């Protein structure tokens, strides 16, 4: 199968406006998670990683959600000479809730529903840059970001496109926070992935972009080697009890990438810090024979950024491969899952070639993708 290169990327998060800035913050242990007293979002104080500003390109024709996407894509494009108006270039947008906050603040109308519909945002963003192909929107719960990378990889491998810009974003509003709270899924403190005392997720905001290409741009470009998606077929909101289905997606990914399990140098897990998710992931990692591989979760820095999470965490993984540094799991102290896995507590230095990124989400979906250094 033809190679797919990541020729550019960007993370726009509360702790940095470029990939380099973000990675620098993570190396220094800086987290975006803070306590917020924002009555518009919740009556009680809550922990989350939120943006301080609400304008990113200074054009209120675009919603905050769209501005985030535009700002991030713009940053990623600046590092390449990509022609977005080429008919061989596509745009994929990943989000779980897009412009949903408008439903909280605006009066209900047909026009508002049209404005909230994700194809509307995708079209605005697409037109901003002048993409010529109809944008593709992926909305697949918390695996959206990885799903979007896999979709982009496939569109290039099938020969339909030569370049795919994959961008994702989500914002936290009352809608999302109240929903996770109603599930008793929000931790009263910053989240503690895989820890014995973990008690729920911390939410976060962010946007990220990767640009995939059939052609290598730079010898340092990381390759997307393979990816797979599976479904638990078990429960709409609770993860699999066995982890078998996520392990299936991991095995399929490794097979497609033609990489043996012992060649995987580290894993960037979903690690939401809910009791059940982390337990399921640990089981799946073990079932896939990866229990000794260093593993981290970045939710302690970014919170759970939903539709952007898969992208942000993939980009950090890519940067980790480039810089040979594994970022520790902030919030993790003592292992609290039933199968022993190798959770990174400290910053690791080494020679890393292959990284596995995984995610799981509501609806029982799981995804895995493998990134490799050339």
């Amino acid at each position, binding site marked *: 199968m033809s190679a797919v290169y990541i020729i550019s990327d960007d993370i726009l998060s509360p702790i940095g406006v470029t990939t380099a800035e973000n990675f620098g913050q993570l190396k220094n242990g800086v987290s975006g998670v803070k306590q917020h007293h924002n009555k518009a979002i919740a009556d009680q104080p809550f922990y989350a990683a939120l943006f301080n500003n609400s304008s990113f390109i200074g054009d209120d024709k675009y919603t905050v959600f769209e501005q985030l996407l535009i700002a991030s894509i713009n940053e990623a494009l600046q590092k390449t000479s990509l022609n977005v108006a080429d008919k061989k270039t596509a745009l994929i947008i990943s989000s779980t809730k897009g412009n949903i906050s408008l439903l909280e603040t605006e009066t209900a109308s047909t026009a508002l529903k049209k404005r909230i*519909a994700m194809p509307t945002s995708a079209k605005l963003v697409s037109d901003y840059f002048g993409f010529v192909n109809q944008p*593709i929107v992926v*909305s697949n719960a918390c695996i959206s970001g990885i799903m979007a990378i896999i979709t982009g990889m496939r569109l290039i491998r099938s020969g339909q496109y030569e370049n795919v810009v994959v961008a994702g974003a989500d914002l936290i509003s009352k809608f999302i926070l109240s929903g996770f709270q109603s599930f008793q899924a929000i931790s009263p403190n910053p989240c503690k992935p895989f820890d014995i005392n973990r008690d729920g997720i911390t939410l976060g905001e962010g946007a990220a972009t990767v640009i995939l290409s059939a052609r290598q741009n730079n010898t340092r470009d990381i390759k997307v080697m393979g990816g797979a998606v599976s479904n638990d077929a078990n429960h709409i909101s609770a993860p699999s009890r066995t982890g078998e289905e996520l392990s299936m997606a991991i095995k399929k990914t490794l097979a497609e990438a033609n990489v043996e399990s012992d060649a995987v140098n580290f894993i960037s897990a979903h690690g939401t810090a809910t009791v059940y998710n982390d337990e399921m992931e640990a089981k799946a990692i073990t079932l896939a024979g990866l229990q000794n591989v260093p593993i981290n979760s970045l939710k302690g820095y970014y919170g759970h950024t939903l539709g952007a999470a898969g992208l942000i965490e993939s980009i950090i993984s890519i940067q980790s491969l480039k810089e040979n540094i594994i970022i520790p799991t902030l919030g993790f102290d003592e292992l609290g899952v039933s199968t022993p896995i190798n959770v990174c507590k400290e910053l690791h230095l080494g020679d890393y070639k292959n990284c596995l990124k995984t995610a799981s989400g509501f609806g029982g979906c799981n995804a895995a993708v493998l990134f490799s250094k050339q």
Partner: protein
Amino acid sequence: MASEKYITSGCTISNNTVYKNGEIIFESRGTDVQSFLLSVYKHFEINYSRFYKMDNLCKLGWLASEILLKDDFKTVNYKPEEIGLILSNANSSLDTDQKYLASVRDIPSPSLFVYTLPNLVTGEICIRNNFKGEDAFFVFESFNAEFIERYVSNLLDNNNLQACICGWVELLESEYKAALFLVEKVKKENAVTFTAANMNNLFEDKSKSPEVYIAGVGVITATGNNVAECLASFEKEEAGIGEITMMNTVHRNELPVAEVKLTNKKLVEMTGLPKDISRTTLLSLVAAREALDDAAIPGLSSLRTGFVSANTVGGMDRSEAFFIDFIADNSKGKLRNVFDHECGSVTEAVADQLGITDYMTTISTACSSSANAIFYGARLIKNNVLDVVVAGGAEALTKFTLNGFNTLMILDKEFCKPFDENRRGLNLGEGAGYVVLVSEKVAKTLNDPLYCKLSGYNNSNDAYHQTASSPDGTGSYLAMTRALEKSGLHPSDIDYINLHGTGTPNNDSAEGTAVKRVFDPHYPPMSSTKSFTGHTLGASGGIEAVFSVLAIRHGIVYPNLRFETKMNELPFAPETRFLKDQKIKNVMSNSFGFGGNCTSLIFSEI
């Protein structure tokens, strides 16, 4: 790597109807989404308690998958991880998002929140069938068959999957549509090749709104007591306008009107109705009966039939008779004269005579009343509430309307001159006009050819003034353009416009401006048949719909009588000749009323 792939099963659910492989397998009467989905669940005798927990989007997609897979799909032919789902829609989970947000004001509902993600549909289908392969949810403005075809083909060619359910599951409030396709590598009976075109065929056929046909017409006006007489008057260019002969009013010999040339006595003889009944009811029955006889629908009594009739002042003529005695002495006056005063009474009396009991209703929206009745009737058929609707309206001349319009100073003391630079106002008229609307199913059972179909309609408000039209003709412009949009036609497709054309300076100026905005620079022939019939108010939309339908049937354009001078402000003039042997495929009929109520109907050749 590429192997043959087939759509081995297809299921579409829309418009209260379930289709499997292009055939209707279940239809329900008009109902809300929730009840419809439950009726599907019950009809197919599915027993799955999770169904009751799902949100409407999941119910819809899940039901479609159940019907898609029932009969000949064997799960055992595949491993769980070999079967996947690639679904899409336009509005994600917005239907449930709105419901969840409503709950947040009280107590946020976790059972609603969980469904605020569109891929829960794929999750529910996976849980039910133990499908563990790849599932993805994409959001597109409309069904993107090309993308789905490529994406699913790729998954099957690369052996990521061996079978895949793909398609569209959309639900937002009362609008919904599911179209699912089962794609496999093995050819089965009735399978079609997996292509975007084949998906679109299965998708489109069932997504297009059902057609509504015109199977019969009936009319009575000052120019004739039936369709044939009215047509003859057009050809002879004989207007029905003249001196007042029947109404006892001080305006006799002063204001011309267009009276139906039959006395109440004569109409009572013709219809068999009681002698004290309103003239509006009499006129209504004459035209409605002619229309229903003309349609000659076999087995009418077994069909769901409705009567949607319009008028503006009900039995006002009888109330006026009552008041002559009552005002002189308020212990006097025959109460049976006010019995039919309200508008609905006319509809009820006529429905009784026609034997229509399934559905009847009255629309009263001033001069657009009966045009609205016609498209409301069409919607009752499109939504599978009724099979046949007699729709239109009736209006008798009354002192109430004559005096009322006179005080508004919009009556012409001469014969009216619609769209003429020197027009002065309108002449009131009376009459009734009805069309018989039938569903596609009923259309197939008819022995006589159909007249045409109602291809477009729209009602928009001018939002300007109670009794005057806006200078730009905003409401008329919106009604015309949106009716065109509904019909899928361009302005250049319209072969004749039956104008509202009352002859008042204000209406013709506003309507003309709107026509210019829509049609410039290519104007089809147009005319106001009010130059023959006068303005029959609540009946005019029905009467002019009948004339529009007849224009298509006979290839004719009606003259605009007494037109002399083109309006300065407009670049076009109405047609003044009776044109025969024309190719008339699409006719637009305009009806605009007080309150800014503007309606355009479009009739199209089949």
